[in-house]
């Protein structure tokens, strides 16, 4: 299968499972077309590994259109590769040059243990949401959708925060493996909307507590998360989370 004329050297992290150590393995891939997506290039490599009787490289992926948040490769030192505002699955080979060496590693964070090769366990994010990233409204409790007008600007801001796909690139990019951008996006979305007000204080406190319990690092405001975020979640959200958290801790009677 050779459709293009790019030849690349890949150095990919291989690790059998969570219990053993891994290492970078080198592979040559030839005949890559620049119209291929980065993951399709991996498909080509895997297909070849299988035909050579070797185990293909495990990597997470699903929708391949940049919205499910499942793909998670750390490419040449950057989460989701060289482009900004793009997930790995949307990255195309035209962003690379013939003869390039590409190093691919899994997300690295103590809170995201490697499952196999490039696949990591991000269930910590689910547990953070379960700790308070919701509005407690049982089905059937809702009033009419238009009963509560929301200023467009606030709604737009909430939407921008809600665009987070939970991929974990923020954690991967942060030198401290901090999950603040992820947590702040959800806290912000709900804090900006009137529906989120009743649980606002409790939410910030609970979600931060869960984030800390998962073993993520502390935020030192380097800003790498926001730069690498494929959905361009803004650092303003982290400031808002800080505000929400401190305000809730100090001023409220909660916690």
């Amino acid at each position: 299968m050779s459709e293009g004329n790019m030849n690349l050297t890949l150095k990919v992290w291989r690790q059998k499972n969570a219990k053993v150590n891994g290492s970078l393995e080198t592979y040559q891939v030839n005949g890559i077309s620049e119209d291929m997506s980065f993951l399709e290039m991996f498909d080509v490599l895997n297909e070849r590994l299988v035909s050579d009787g070797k185990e293909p490289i495990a990597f997470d992926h699903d929708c391949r259109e940049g919205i499910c948040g499942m793909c998670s490769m750390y490419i040449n030192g950057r989460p989701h590769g060289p482009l900004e505002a793009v997930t790995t699955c949307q990255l195309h080979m035209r962003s690379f040059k013939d003869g390039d060496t590409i190093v691919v590693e899994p997300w690295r964070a103590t809170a995201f243990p490697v499952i196999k090769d490039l696949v990591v366990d991000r269930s910590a994010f689910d547990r953070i949401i379960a700790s308070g990233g919701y509005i407690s409204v049982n089905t059937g409790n809702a009033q009419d959708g238009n009963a509560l007008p929301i200023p467009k600007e606030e709604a737009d801001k909430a939407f921008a925060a809600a665009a987070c796909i939970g991929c974990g690139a923020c954690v991967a990019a942060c030198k401290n493996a901090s999950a603040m951008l992820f947590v702040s996006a959800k806290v912000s979305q709900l804090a900006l909307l009137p529906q989120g007000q009743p649980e606002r204080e409790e939410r910030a406190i609970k979600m931060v507590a869960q984030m800390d319990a998962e073993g993520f690092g502390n935020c030192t405001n380097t800003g790498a998360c926001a730069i690498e975020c494929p959905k361009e979640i803004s650092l303003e959200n982290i400031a808002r989370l800080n505000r929400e958290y401190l305000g809730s801790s100090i001023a409220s009677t909660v916690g």
Partner: protein
Amino acid sequence: MSWLTKTLSSSIGKKVLMSLTGLFLCTFLVVHLSGNLQLFYKDGGYAFNTYAVFMTSFPLIKVISYFNYFFILFHAFWGLYLEYQNRKARSVRYAVVRNSSSWSSRNMAILGTVLLVYIVVHMGDFWYKYHNEPLPYVRYTENVQTGVKLATEMPANYTQDVKKIEISDFETGTRLIIVKDLYKEVSRVFQNPVFVLIYILGMFALGFHLYHGFQSAFQTLGWNHPKYTPLVRGISTWIFAILIPIGFAAMPIFFYVKHLMGN
């Protein structure tokens, strides 16, 4: 756990402690610099030396200074503890990292450690000597009418129990002031190019530390606003990362150059 310890021991609370102590130290720097600018007065060190007396004897300032020492130590060791935690949050490192964040922001712990070493050297140079070593004294004779001051070194074995002796002679219209001559110690120390270099390096570290640190403190406290954050960043860069370190670095350079020119 009370709400306060719970808050302060959370990741955000820990950072808030860094932020608040950091901002306090930033304020200190402004005061320290404006006071030390008196080194540039051509008054034989009068302003500087009396300022040193004031700073070490006025009760409120003394209390604040103890807070200051504590905050420096706290900021340093708390920062190192956070750095330790942050490193633990990534137990396996990347083979290749291409950073998108600023160099300063990633190296706060190293810069801070350099600064801590610097502060120890600096305090050993001046603070320790001022408090514990028999520095020579200087006597200023001021003509009250003209304000002109004459500095006279006191004999080497001269010493006094109080920090400052001030005698006004209304008949001659003069005022005598005798204080420790820290100014002279400063100019002596900065004749040594090694010290000058150490101080300049220290100020580089300070500049980079504050380039990230000052504005980061605001972010940690939740201050991020499209209208005002650019201002905070501007202050962080122009005042704290550039102006203040240059101001401080100018002192050793000034004395060294002065020394070279034979004054």
